[in-house]
């Protein structure tokens, strides 16, 4: 009941004219960013974040959350119309969305994707509302030892569940954490890693600099490489008759949609997993539980609906640990977290006590963002078809200029702009060589918390390292972290044993 009262207060914040306006702007921008092949929510948020100083923090986070949401909807548009996923989260949508478009059912597929996104988003927001307060209450019992253990757990999920090369994942986590230590030592205040006394490094490396470099400039360089040919856009016509027909069809897919929503929400909460695997898993599940699995991949609408509910639910799910624990569930939420820190807010359980207006305003804005996104999405489909024909070079030049100026604006130092260029080129090369970038960004954001909680615990316990396993909660987290960390080793041993047995047979 208390939750409902708080949510009602939240709506009082988010339903102000200004915040509704912000949601509409954010969702529309997000839809376009998401619909552009190559650009997803993380790129959109990274590029727009420096521009948010113009509004108060509560509206800024609503704007970014709306972009995040809009991008999740928009990703499906280019998956269906171009056959190129708008973002990695919409990869699974191409499997059946593209065939549907080729059969002349592009309108139907787009309506299905929008409706499914709405349902996935809404179910996830309801789950979010239910879980947020209890989880924040639990997190209030956390001391520095638990905080450290939880961050460690977040990183080990990348090693155990990330699906990327284990060694490369470890390199990226260590690199991100090492970069986060640049600047002044948290405890003694002495400068470290300032590389021959370069003054620009005294204030550390901002997460924003890394994010704009990697997700702005690096992404554009990557896109220049991949978009050599001009893809053809499938035209889509929408009418109320089609809307009615598709809603009738969607009504038969509740099983896939509710499965996708729950799966997406919980998978989205895990730092290493997030929306992309959630969408792929939901697709796989819809296919394996279907009566007609052979029709998947050939234009089955259920193959559009399942991943779209899951990726939207996951994007909401990943906000939950960010807001309640201060541990982001995805690179995009890591940027949101960094943004909040920049605006002077500390994400985590105390936020629920100190800034209830902010927290519940944000949560309630997710409801409004969802409604706005589905309506704007359906209304703007003709415009998307037009926008997708825009030459990529035009978009790239604007994005690159925004990256430079946006990188300069927060600190007003050219030092940061030089770093952005460096990170951009390095990020492009690393990505090309299959190094995962999400753990790098997450590590830079979480690094200070990890080091601070580790050293605070030890100072509090007079250097007793066993303090981390003497407290039940932190011991549990560390145990889980160990399991995730050793998971690839178990897998390796199992496959090599199997390989060793085959010749003997």
């Amino acid at each position, binding site marked *: 009941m208390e939750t409902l009262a708080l949510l009602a207060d939240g709506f009082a914040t988010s339903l102000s004219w200004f915040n509704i306006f912000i949601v509409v702007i954010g969702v529309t921008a997000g839809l376009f960013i998401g619909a552009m092949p190559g650009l997803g929510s993380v790129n959109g948020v990274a590029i727009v974040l420096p521009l948010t100083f113009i509004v108060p923090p509560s509206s800024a986070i609503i704007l970014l959350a709306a972009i995040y949401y809009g991008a999740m909807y928009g990703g499906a548009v280019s998956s269906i119309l171009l056959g190129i996923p708008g973002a990695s989260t919409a990869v699974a949508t191409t499997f059946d969305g593209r065939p549907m478009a080729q059969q002349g059912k592009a309108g139907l597929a787009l309506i299905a994707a929008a409706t499914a996104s709405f349902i996935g988003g809404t179910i996830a927001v309801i789950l979010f509302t239910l879980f947020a307060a209890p989880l924040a209450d639990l997190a209030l019992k956390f001391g520095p030892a638990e905080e450290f253990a939880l961050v460690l757990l977040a990183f080990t999920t990348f090693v155990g569940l990330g699906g990327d090369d284990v060694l490369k994942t470890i390199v990226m986590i260590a690199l991100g954490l090492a970069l986060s230590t640049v600047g002044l030592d948290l405890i003694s205040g002495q400068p470290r890693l300032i590389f021959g006394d370069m003054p620009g490094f005294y204030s550390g490396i901002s997460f924003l600099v890394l994010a704009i470099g990697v997700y702005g400039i690096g992404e554009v360089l990557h896109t220049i490489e991949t978009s050599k040919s001009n893809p053809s856009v499938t035209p889509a016509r929408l009418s109320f008759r089609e809307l009615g027909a598709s809603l009738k069809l969607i009504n038969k897919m509740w099983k896939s949609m509710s499965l996708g929503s729950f799966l997406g929400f919980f998978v989205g909460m895990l730092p290493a997993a997030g929306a992309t695997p959630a969408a792929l898993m939901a697709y796989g599940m819809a296919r394996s539980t279907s009566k007609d699995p052979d029709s998947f991949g050939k234009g089955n609408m259920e193959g559009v609906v399942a991943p779209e509910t899951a990726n939207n639910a996951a994007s909401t799910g990943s906000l939950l640990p960010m807001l309640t624990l201060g541990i982001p569930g995805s690179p995009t939420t890591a940027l949101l977290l960094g943004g909040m820190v920049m605006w002077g807010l500390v994400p985590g359980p105390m936020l629920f006590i100190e800034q209830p207006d902010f927290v519940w305003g944000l949560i309630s804005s997710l409801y409004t963002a969802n409604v706005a996104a589905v309506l704007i999405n359906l209304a703007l489909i003709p415009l998307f078809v037009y926008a997708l024909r825009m*030459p990529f070079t035009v978009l790239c030049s604007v994005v690159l200029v925004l990256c430079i100026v946006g990188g300069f604006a927060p600190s007003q130092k050219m030092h940061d702009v030089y770093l952005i260029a460096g990170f951009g080129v390095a990020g492009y090369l690393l990505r090309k060589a299959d190094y995962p970038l999400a753990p790098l960004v997450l590590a830079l954001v979480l690094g200070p918390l990890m080091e601070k909680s580790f050293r605070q615990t030890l100072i509090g316990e007079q250097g007793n390292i066993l303090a981390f396993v003497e407290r039940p909660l932190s011991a549990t987290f560390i145990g889980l972290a160990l399991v995730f960390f050793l998971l690839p080793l178990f897998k390796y041993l199992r496959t090599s044993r199997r390989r060793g047995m085959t010749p003997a047979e």
Partner: protein
Amino acid sequence: MLTADRTIAASIMALSIYFMWHATVLPIGWVEGEGPGGGAFPFWLSAIMLLAAGGIFIRSFQADHQMTSEDGRFFDRTTITSVASVAGALIACIVAMPYLGAYIALPLFMFWYLKMFGGHGWVLTLSLCLTTPVFLFFFFEVTLKILLPKGWTEPWFFPLYAAFF
């Protein structure tokens, strides 16, 4: 692909050693009753990075890994030219910014990108090159009060400052 994989792994190893060297300015060991010293986190994390990158480097010489990595080249000629020219132009623009100012360097970059690299028409190129600085000025300088670097062009802006501030 294999050469690129090795080069990147080797560069990361070199970077780790560089980081470790710089981290030793502060104590990297265990301070009694306090836990790790100020340099310990960067030092040992870089050491982990060195080991993991070393693992990638050594692995690339193993036979079964070579089989899977051999297919596909890291760069082909057209890719490297287009990506390198954009990266080069971008870096040139950034380096020129403190001297020429953002309002000259950025439109110049856009002009190069749209006209010479993208091959777009004059109308599109000029309209984007001319409207972008105007937007930047009103958004950053007038609304946010963030002054972009102007370099030699600073005196040109005095009348504008007088009008808007």
